[in-house]
C-alpha cells in the first residue's frame, strides 16, 4: 500500500543518511524517488557524496565505493526492520583495510539485534567475529567442518599453501 511504502522509504532514508558517513568516515548520501508522484511505481535512486568529493553518477564510483554504498543501504534496512538472522556471503570482498574495519564495527551494532552468519576470506572480518567455523575439503569434493583457532589463523593459512 502507498502509505506503508512511503513510511518505510522515509525511515530507510533517515537511517541511510546516518549510516553512510559512519561507513565512509564522512561524506553524505540519501535516497531519492524517481517518480515521487507515483509511489507505487517509483524507483529508488542512491545519491552518493563520498567525503571531500562531489555527488557523482553512481556508475563513476569505484568498485569499493559501490560495494560500501550498497552495504550502507542494506544495513539501513536491517536496522529499520531487523531480521532474526542475516546470512552474508563475502560482502566485504572489494573493501580495503580501512573500509573493512568500519564495516565490521557497524556489523557489531547490527549483531546486537540480529544473529549474523557471514562468509569471508578477510582476516580482519574473521577477527571481529565471535566464533569461527572452518570448512575444508581434506578429501577432495567432500566438505567437512573443522574447529578454527583464531590465534593460529595466520599460521594455518600459510600451512594451506
Amino acid at each position, binding site marked *: 500500500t502507498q502509505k506503508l*511504502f512511503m*513510511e*518505510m*522509504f522515509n525511515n530507510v532514508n533517515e537511517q541511510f543518511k546516518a549510516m553512510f558517513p559512519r561507513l565512509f568516515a564522512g561524506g553524505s548520501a540519501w535516497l531519492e524517488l*524517481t517518480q515521487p508522484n507515483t509511489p507505487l*511505481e*517509483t*524507483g*529508488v*535512486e542512491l545519491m552518493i557524496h563520498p567525503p571531500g568529493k562531489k555527488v557523482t553518477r*553512481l556508475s563513476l*564510483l569505484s568498485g569499493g565505493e*559501490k*560495494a560500501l554504498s*550498497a*552495504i550502507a*543501504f*542494506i544495513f539501513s*534496512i*536491517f536496522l529499520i*526492520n531487523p*531480521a*532474526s*538472522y*542475516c*546470512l*552474508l*556471503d*563475502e*560482502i566485504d570482498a572489494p573493501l580495503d583495510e580501512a573500509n573493512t574495519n568500519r564495516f565490521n564495527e557497524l*556489523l*557489531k551494532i547490527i*549483531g546486537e539485534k*540480529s*544473529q*549474523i*552468519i*557471514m*562468509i*569471508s*576470506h578477510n582476516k580482519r572480518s*574473521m577477527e*571481529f*567475529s*565471535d*566464533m*569461527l*567455523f*572452518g*570448512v*575444508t*575439503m581434506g*578429501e*577432495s*569434493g*567432500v*566438505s*567437512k*567442518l573443522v574447529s578454527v583457532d583464531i590465534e593460529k589463523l595466520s599460521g594455518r593459512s600459510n600451512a*594451506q599453501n
Partner: protein
Amino acid sequence: MRLKRLEIIGFKSFPDKCIIDFPLGISAIVGPNGCGKSNIIDAIKWVMGEQSIKQLRGKSMGDVIFSGTEKRLQLNMAEVSLTLSNDTPETVEADLSQLTEIMITRRLFRSGESAYLINKQPCRLKDIHNVFLGSGMGAKSCAIVQQGNIGAITDAAPEERRTFIEEAA
C-alpha cells in the same frame, strides 16, 4: 527466531553428516575456495523452502544431491534440518507458538520425491513457508545477501531497488 543448529547430509558437497551449532552474535564461516561455505548458505535457503533452483546455482532440483567424486559414489538423497529457537512466539502461527524450539527438515530423493517435516512430523512445503511468514525471514528476504549480489544493488535499475524497501515493509 534465531538459528540454533544446522544438520546437512547428502546436500551438495556434504555427503557426510555435518552439524553446525550457531551461537548468538557474529559467526564467520571460513575456508579455501570451493570448500563448501556458500553451499552452507544454500542449505539454509533450501530447508527454509527455496523453490528456485537458479537461486541455488543449479539447473534442476537434483543438482542439490551429492553427485559423487572421483572416489565416492553419488548419493540418492539430500537432507537438511534446521533447528530454530522460538524466542519470538508472537511471530509464529498459533499451533507452533507454544514450542521453545522448531525443527524443520527437508528431504529430496533422486527419484524426485520430496519430504517436509516440522519437529519430525510430515507436513507440506506450504507449512514450512508459513513458519517464516511474518518474521521477515523467508528464503527471499533481505536478510540473505548471496555471493556477488551486493554489486547488484548499485547496478540495479531504480525500479528493482524499490523491492528491497517493499520487502522490509
